[in-house]
């Protein structure tokens, strides 16, 4: 058989066999294989897309969480500040009230003391006058012999009392 002369028999068998192989492999091998490969590629692509979406969602969630935390922090600060303000105000009020009460008490005490002192002074004056009368009585009893002398003395005594 010559090398470069194609034999009709081999052309026949090769032609028929190759076409049969082409048909059978296309239908029962390449078609399912190509489909499986494409499906798998699609599923990989989907998985990648889903992962990207999930990552984005997580990022968003994190962001919103941070936002919420920030808001909570601000709220906390605000509440604390308000509470402090209220406390300060209460304290001030209490202080004012207390100092007023103390002031009032002091005033009352002062007045009472003054009253007492006045009373005491009045009392002392009374006593002094009583004593003076008694002294005067005694002196009068003794000195009244000489009326002038008595009058002078009297005058002197009264004058002295006035000084005090």
């Amino acid at each position, binding site marked *: *058989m*010559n*090398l*470069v*002369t*194609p*034999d*009709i*028999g*081999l*052309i*026949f*068998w*090769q*032609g028929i*066999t*190759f*076409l*049969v*192989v*082409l048909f*059978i*492999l*296309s239908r*029962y*091998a*390449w*078609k*399912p*294989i*190509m489909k*499986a*490969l494409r*499906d*798998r590629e699609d*599923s990989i692509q989907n998985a990648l897309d889903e992962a990207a979406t999930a990552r984005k969602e997580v990022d968003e969630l994190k962001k919103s969480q941070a936002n919420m935390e920030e808001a909570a922090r601000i709220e906390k600060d605000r509440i604390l500040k308000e509470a402090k303000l209220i406390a300060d105000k209460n304290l001030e009020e209490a202080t004012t009230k207390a100092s007023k009460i103390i002031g009032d008490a002091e005033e009352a005490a002062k007045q009472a003391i003054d009253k007492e002192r006045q009373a005491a002074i009045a009392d002392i004056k009374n006593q002094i006058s009583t004593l003076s009368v008694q002294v005067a009585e005694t002196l009068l009893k003794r000195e009244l012999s000489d009326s002038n002398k008595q009058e002078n003395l009297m005058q002197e005594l009264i004058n002295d009392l006035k000084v005090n």
Partner: protein
Amino acid sequence: MLKKTLLLVGLLCLFQFAQAKGGGDDKFEAKDFSELITHHIADSHGWEFFKGFTIPLPVILYTDKGLDIFMSSAIPHGDGKHEDIKKEGHKEGAKAHDGAITFEHGGNKYVYAHGHFALANGGHVMDFSITKNVASLFVSVALLFFVFFSVSKGYKKRAGKAPRGIQSFFEPIIIFVRDDIAKENIGPKYERFTPYLLTVFFFIWFNNMLGLLPGAANLTGNIAVTLVLSVITFVITTLSANKNYWAHIFTPPVPKLLYIILVPIEIIGMFTKPFSLMIRLFANITAGHIIMLSLFGLIFIFQSLAVGVVSTAFATFMNFLELLVAFIQAYVFTLLSASYFSTAVEEHHHDEAHAHAH
């Protein structure tokens, strides 16, 4: 060290060669050997694994009297070698002249010479025998079916899961053919060509590899086989051709006067492309086989140990190279087929660009 050894072996080889040339009384002539090589590369009616062990194959002949079917072992003394013919004595009275065997079967008188049947009365005979190549073709087809049905089953069994076993070996190659050959060359319309490209790629590759086995047939190195493959590529190209393809051939973007030269060239080009496919695959595979056989032939021609060592080492190297060539030729055939398909379906605007230029 290796270099020195190689140099020494090379010198020995040269010396032996000179001696052999001078000797001149070799038992094995180079001329005999070229015949032997041709015999090994060509198709035959029986599958000879080694001398004395030939698997008989069916011979199917079509003559004026209809089909005549018999086993190749029925041909007196097989393949028509000289020594066989000398031991003549078949009951049907075969005669040997110029390596031809004459015998009778099914009412026809055949003359069998150099692997070809002819009728003794000069009538026409068509040979549709299951020759060594056809048998080898069937073996390769069985292998193709086995492998790719297994692969396909793997996808069904493990749908959506990672490939395993034979499936994971072939998957990258299938994807390579699909993505780097089909998609890369043809573009968006690649999908309808992928089944053919995959089939032709694995058909050629498997048969190239099978051809390297000892005793195997040289199927992809047979011009009838490469002819059929390239004709199919040609038919697919022509049938799927769009109007751009035909416009490029019959109204190329050149001045009208040049059509006289260019149109015939373009028409010839339609045929030279698949023709080159046919020749390339045939020549590459056949050349590989011839080199291997020649290297082994040197041993018998020179009958020297040194040549034996060098030849064997070189033949081993060539065998590895042939493994590579087996893949490359399958790749090249598929790649070029894909590029021819791409010219057939390409949507380019050659004519408009040409019109604008004027």
